[in-house]
């Protein structure tokens, strides 16, 4: 477990024992480490920030009540995220914002037939400005955070879990119950699209030579 950036949680057995014993400090540590990522993942399924907050809250309530029954067949993080995803999916369906999950089975099933990579060959020659420590980079990050909502739902969830939250591919497959190959296709499509957005952005702010 524990691939979130900057995460310093103890091993699962320690976490589970502490939660069962009512250790509030441990619960607070989980809340503070995972909630922001959970909000983002929940937001992929529901229509407002407020809904996402309620989904995260309901998930934690289910964790509080369910920790005694946790069997350790997956990591604690995967278990919590599965509850989150199921809660968010149900809520999303109720809000009718998303179509049933199966309606998206096609988004990213196959690799072929999509023509040239997004962005086109001409862009390949343009170098990007160095991303670190610039106002430009901050603006790009804000832009991308907004734009993720335009990805197809399954791609959005996968790229959020993998690249934004730093989960491993095994964790993502476990949480979403999809195959490694499917996960990779969805991730690749999403990354290629985001790269295209960044390329257009950097192109639009480029200084004339």
């Amino acid at each position: 477990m524990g691939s979130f950036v900057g995460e310093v949680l103890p091993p699962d057995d320690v976490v589970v024992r502490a939660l069962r014993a009512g250790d509030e400090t441990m619960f607070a540590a989980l809340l503070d480490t995972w909630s922001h990522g959970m909000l983002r993942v929940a937001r992929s399924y529901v229509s407002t920030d407020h809904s996402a907050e309620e989904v995260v809250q309901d998930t934690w309530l289910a964790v509080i009540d369910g920790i005694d029954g946790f069997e350790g067949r997956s990591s604690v993080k995967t278990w919590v995220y599965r509850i989150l995803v199921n809660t968010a999916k149900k809520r999303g369906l109720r809000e009718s914002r998303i179509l049933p999950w199966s309606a998206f089975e096609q988004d990213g099933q196959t690799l072929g037939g999509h023509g040239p990579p997004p962005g086109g060959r001409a862009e390949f020659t343009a170098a990007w400005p160095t991303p670190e420590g610039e106002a430009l980079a901050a603006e790009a990050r804000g832009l991308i955070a907004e734009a993720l909502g335009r990805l197809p739902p399954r791609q959005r969830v996968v790229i959020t879990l993998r690249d934004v939250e730093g989960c491993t591919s095994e964790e993502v497959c476990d949480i979403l119950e999809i195959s490694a190959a499917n996960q990779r296709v969805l991730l690749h499509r999403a990354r290629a699209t985001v790269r295209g957005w960044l390329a257009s952005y950097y192109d639009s702010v480029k200084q004339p030579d």
Partner: protein
Amino acid sequence: MKRFISEARAVNVVKRFTCDELVEHLTAYLDDALDTPARDAVRDHLSCCEGCGRYFDQYRATIRVLGDLPTRPLPTETRSRLLSTFRTRRADHLTDG
């Protein structure tokens, strides 16, 4: 004199990717999910194709940007409500046995 193509070269010819194919393999490459010939083919292509080399740099820059997006914490009231719920419900659980 008969000319022979070395075996390594022949494998390379078979496994060589076009630029479009290469791009489709980048996620698998970064996840280390390719077999050895395919991985070598990606590496060879990237080292000698400037366009794909740059695309690969941009692809990795994209992943870095995604790993550094602004975050929004759980609202303070929600957080304290959850902590107090934890306190009372876990206490119930413990006394219930």
